[in-house]
């Protein structure tokens, strides 16, 4: 009876996880959903300390070690999560996913060591699967972290003979897996782990910066599956359910994200295997551009009837959301029709701009989604691009083979005037030149977005 009670609580935890995912899928309930997930994790963790063995005994040896390790994890995890800057959240998620994958791989390695000769084929298979996929998820996530943190280039890294290399690596992983499965032994397993780690790196390196979130989502789904496999080996239904939930929802989410960015999922993920040379227009050309002063910009805005503000990653970096709102309010007060054109992947995470602008209490009805704002650019006098670049780059339409080709963009080039607020001629996240900067309709106002906007606001006031 007592065991059944704990099993019931385990089932309750699984239900909490389902409710968590359900909650997270709708804006109103998202936060509560997350809290339910945390509650589920808490319940599940508590149960394991009290779950009685076959004969009713409490089975936890090494209790001190275990509690100590949990304490260390909390001491590292909570402050890391609390202190990370908003702009760095995606890398944080990547890291957390990586350590999760690493944990699953370590658990599987220990399981493997414990597997007796009598272990069923399915159990051995599940263990080896977890080691391989957990390691890939770990190293892959680390590379995505490095890319997002810009500790390495965000552009696709094409190694010489990269294709041969990754195929060879894949073959080696499969071969060694077979070996490990046919004769149990710790050293071949460690070799397998090493090869899998390498595979994770090779898999993610050729992914262009803009596609990195898609890859994180995929690795996240992978980790989910390893957790399910571990659950099978450990006969823990909760892990099976939780892992499968994450695996399945992660897969769907990966597809949805790829769709939102207008990317081909296959092309993104198997770039490593196909490696078409993705030619990007070279950076740093010396071509004439038209730059203006804050006063020029203020005048352009002042005499417009309709202004569309296009925020991007630079707005987040400069923390200029309050200033941009101040400016927008000024313009509205002058009777100018103001809207924000929100690209689904502006910034570094989906919804980034909504979050930022909501923080500054921008009226919700001024936030216009891409599909709705695009047809209005033809009637727009000024498109004010604040720290955005890739999301308005026409190369997405005109240059097949460039990293963002095929992504839907905000059609700012249809409006009568374009103003760019950025610090330099450097390209955006995808690392490709933006022809629009050289467009005769374009005025550039160089400088940090917040500083520039502040100047524009005072110029507007003095007009």
């Amino acid at each position, binding site marked *: 009876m007592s065991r059944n009670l704990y099993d019931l609580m385990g089932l309750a935890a699984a239900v909490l996880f389902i409710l968590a995912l359900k909650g997270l899928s709708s804006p109103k309930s998202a936060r509560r959903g*997350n809290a339910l997930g945390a509650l589920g994790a808490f319940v599940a963790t508590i149960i394991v300390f009290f779950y009685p063995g076959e004969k009713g005994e409490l089975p936890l040896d090494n209790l001190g070690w275990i509690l100590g*390790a*949990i304490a260390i*994890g909390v001491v590292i995890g909570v402050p890391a999560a609390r202190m990370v800057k908003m702009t760095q959240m995606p890398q944080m998620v990547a890291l957390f996913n990586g350590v*999760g994958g690493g944990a699953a791989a*370590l658990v599987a390695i220990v399981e493997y*060591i414990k597997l007796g000769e009598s272990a069923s084929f399915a159990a051995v298979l599940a263990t080896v699967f977890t080691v391989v996929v957990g390691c890939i998820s770990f190293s892959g996530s680390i590379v995505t972290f490095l890319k997002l943190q810009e500790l390495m280039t965000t552009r696709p890294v094409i190694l010489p003979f990269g294709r041969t290399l990754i195929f060879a690596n894949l073959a080696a992983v499969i071969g060694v897996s077979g070996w490990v499965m046919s004769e149990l032994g710790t050293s071949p397993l460690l070799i397998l782990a090493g090869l899998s780690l390498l595979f994770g790196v090779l898999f993610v390196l050729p992914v262009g910066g803009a596609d990195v979130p898609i890859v994180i989502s995929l690795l996240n789904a992978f980790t989910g599956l390893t957790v399910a496999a571990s659950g099978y080996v450990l006969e823990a239904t909760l892990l099976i359910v939780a892992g*499968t939930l994450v695996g*399945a929802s992660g*897969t769907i989410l990966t597809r949805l994200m790829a769709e939102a960015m207008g990317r081909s999922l296959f092309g993104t993920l198997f770039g490593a295997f196909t490696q078409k040379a993705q030619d990007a227009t070279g950076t740093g050309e010396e071509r004439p551009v038209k730059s203006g002063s804050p006063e020029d910009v203020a005048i352009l805005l002042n005499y417009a009837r309709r202004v569309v503000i296009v925020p991007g990653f630079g707005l987040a970096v400069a923390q200029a959301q309050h200033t941009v709102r101040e400016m927008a309010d000024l313009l509205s007060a002058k009777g100018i029709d103001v809207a924000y054109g929100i690209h689904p992947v502006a910034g570094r995470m989906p919804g980034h701009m909504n979050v930022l602008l909501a923080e500054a209490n921008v009226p919700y009805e001024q936030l216009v989604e891409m599909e709705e704002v695009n047809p209005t650019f033809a009637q727009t006098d000024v498109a004010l691009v604040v720290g955005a670049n890739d999301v308005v780059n026409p190369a997405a339409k005109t240059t097949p083979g460039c990293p963002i080709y095929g992504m839907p963009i905000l059609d700012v080039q249809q409006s009568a005037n374009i103003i760019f607020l950025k610090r330099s001629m450097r390209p955006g996240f995808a690392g490709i030149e933006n022809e629009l900067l050289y467009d005769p309709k374009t005025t550039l106002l160089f400088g940090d977005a917040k500083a520039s906007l502040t100047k524009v606001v005072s110029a507007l006031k003095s007009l």
Partner: protein
Amino acid sequence: MSEAMALLAIFTLAIFVGFEVVSKVSSTLHTPLMSGANAIHGIILVGAIIVASHSHTSLELGLSIAAIILATINVVGGFVVTDRMLEMFKGKKKS
């Protein structure tokens, strides 16, 4: 029905639940959802605790303690960071 079959049935149904539950999420919530799902798989912590409690060699214990630390970071950090992301959506309600 054998135990293996029951587990397979559970696995299959969980796949459907996972698919269906998130299939209509708006793009605004992609990142928090990913982050929340990421925290959920941190529940491998339970697996790590189980293997740790059955570890008898120091190699096994060492590896499983490392697994517990990593898994705890995943689960605790994951839920906290997701909550922080979602906190920022609050502002929207006012309007």
